[in-house]
C-alpha cells in the first residue's frame, strides 16, 4: 500500500512553492535595492513581475487542492499540504508588499533626496534574513531555525516602532521632508509586514513538522503603533 506516486506529487508541490518563494523573495530584494539606489527601472521590474507571482499562487493552490481531493492525505502529509496552502498565501502577500515598497520608492525618486532619520537598509537586511531563514526551515523541515525566525520578529517590530517615532517627529519638525518621511514610514511598515509573513511561514513549518500550533503566542499583548 505504499503511495510512491502520491509522495512524488508532494515533492512536486514543494518544488512549485519553492519556485514561487524564489520570485517573492527576489521581489523584496529588488524593491529594497531600488530604495538604496533610487532606481526607477528596478521598481518597474518589481511591478512587472507581480502577475507571475499571482499566477504561481493560483497554480500551487490548485495543485494542493487536487491532492487533498484525490489522495485524502493523512497526518504529516495532510499537515504539509495545509501548510503549503497557507505559506502560498503568505508568499503572495510578500509579493504585494514588495510592490507597495516599489511604488513608494517611485514616489521618492520623483523628489530630491532628503536625509531621513531611518535606516531602511538595516531593517531590510533583518527582514530578508527572516524570509530566507523561514524558507530554509521549510526546505529542511528545521523547526529550530523556524523558532529563530519567530524570535527575530520582535527585533523588526522594535525597528518599525522606532522608525514610526523618528519619522513622525521629522514630519513635524521638517515640513519640507514630510512627504518623503511618509513614504519611508510606509516602506518600514511594508517591511514589518513582510517579517510578519515570514513569521507565519515559520509557524506553518512548525505545524507541518511537529503538528504544533504556535500561532498567537500566549501572553503576548498586541501593541498599537
Amino acid at each position, binding site marked *: 500500500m*505504499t*503511495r510512491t506516486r502520491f*509522495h512524488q506529487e508532494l515533492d512536486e508541490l514543494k518544488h512549485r512553492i519553492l519556485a514561487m518563494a524564489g520570485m517573492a523573495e527576489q521581489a523584496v530584494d529588488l524593491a529594497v535595492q531600488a530604495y538604496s539606489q533610487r532606481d526607477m527601472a528596478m521598481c518597474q521590474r518589481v511591478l512587472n513581475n507581480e502577475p507571475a507571482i499571482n499566477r504561481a499562487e493560483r497554480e500551487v493552490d490548485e495543485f494542493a487542492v487536487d491532492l487533498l481531493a484525490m489522495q485524502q492525505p*493523512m*497526518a*504529516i502529509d*495532510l499537515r504539509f499540504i495545509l501548510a503549503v496552502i497557507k505559506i502560498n498565501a503568505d508568499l503572495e502577500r510578500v509579493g504585494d508588499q514588495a510592490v507597495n515598497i516599489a511604488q513608494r520608492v517611485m514616489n521618492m525618486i520623483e523628489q530630491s533626496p532628503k536625509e531621513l532619520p531611518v535606516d531602511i537598509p538595516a531593517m531590510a537586511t533583518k527582514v530578508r534574513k527572516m524570509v530566507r531563514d523561514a524558507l530554509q526551515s521549510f526546505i529542511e523541515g528545521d523547526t529550530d531555525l523556524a523558532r529563530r525566525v519567530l524570535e527575530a520578529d520582535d527585533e523588526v517590530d522594535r525597528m518599525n516602532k522606532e522608525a514610526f517615532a523618528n519619522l513622525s517627529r521629522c514630519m513635524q519638525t521638517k515640513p519640507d521632508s514630510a512627504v518623503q518621511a511618509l513614504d519611508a514610514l510606509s516602506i518600514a511598515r511594508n517591511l514589518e509586514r513582510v517579517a510578519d509573513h515570514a513569521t507565519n511561514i515559520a509557524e506553518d513549518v512548525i505545524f507541518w513538522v511537529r503538528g504544533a500550533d504556535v500561532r498567537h503566542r500566549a501572553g503576548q499583548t498586541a501593541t498599537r503603533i
Partner: protein
Amino acid sequence: MPTAVEVRGLKAWFGKTEALHGIDMTVESNHATAVIGPSGCGKSTFIRCLNRMHETNPEAKAEGQVHIGGTDIYGVPAVDVRRRVGMVFQKPNPFPTMSIYDNVAAGLKLNGTRSRQTLDEAVERSLQQAAIWDEVKDVLKKKSGASLSGGQQQRLCIARALAVNPEVLLMDEPASALDPISTAKIEDLIFELKQKLTIVIVTHNMQQASRVAEYTGFFLMGDLVEFDKTEKIFTNPSDKRTEDYITGRFG
C-alpha cells in the same frame, strides 16, 4: 463516559504462533472504536477475542483479561458472552434458506423466546435500528435473506445481531464488500447505533475509520502500537510507525 470493554494483557495464539502480544485497551461506552493495521497485524484476532470467537478455532487460545460491563468474559460461558457481544462479518452471512423475519428472530428463538408478539416487536425494532425496515417490511416472510442485495444482506445481519440487545457490536470490515452507497448507509447506521451500544470496528479503510470512530487503535505485528482519539491518530500520531502506515510509507 463509563467503560464498556476493558482489555488487559490480552495474548492470543494460533497453535504455537503468538498473534497478540499482550494488548491493553479501554473502550468507552456508546462510542465507536476503530481498529486499523496491515493484514496479519492481529486486528481481527483481537476483536474475535472480545466475544470468544477466537477460541472456536481448535488450534487457538487466548490469555489475559477482557471485562465487558464489568464481567470477566473468560469467567462465564461463551454463549452468554456472545449474547452480550454481537458480531458482523466482512461478508454478509444471512441464513440463506430462512425468511428475513426468521433470520432476525433466530437468536431470540435460540434463547427460548416463543411469544409471537415479543418476536414481532423485536424483529421490527431490530430492522428499524438497522435502517432496513422500510425496504423489507412487506416481504418479511415471503423473501429469504439470500434474495436481498449485498448491502441489504449486511444490514439484515446487523439487525440479526441487534435482536438480542447486545451491549457491544463488533464489526469486522463490515463494508469492505459493499458499494459506496451501501457503505454510506452502514456508516450512518454506526452513527445511530452508538447512541444505544458500543461499537468496535475493524477496517482497512482509513477514511472510514476517521468518519465513524471517536477512537482508533493501530495494530502492528500483534502489538497495539498506538491508541488515541481518531483525530489525533489521523492528523498527528505520536508513533512514527503509525504515521508511516497511515501515510502509506509502508504496508
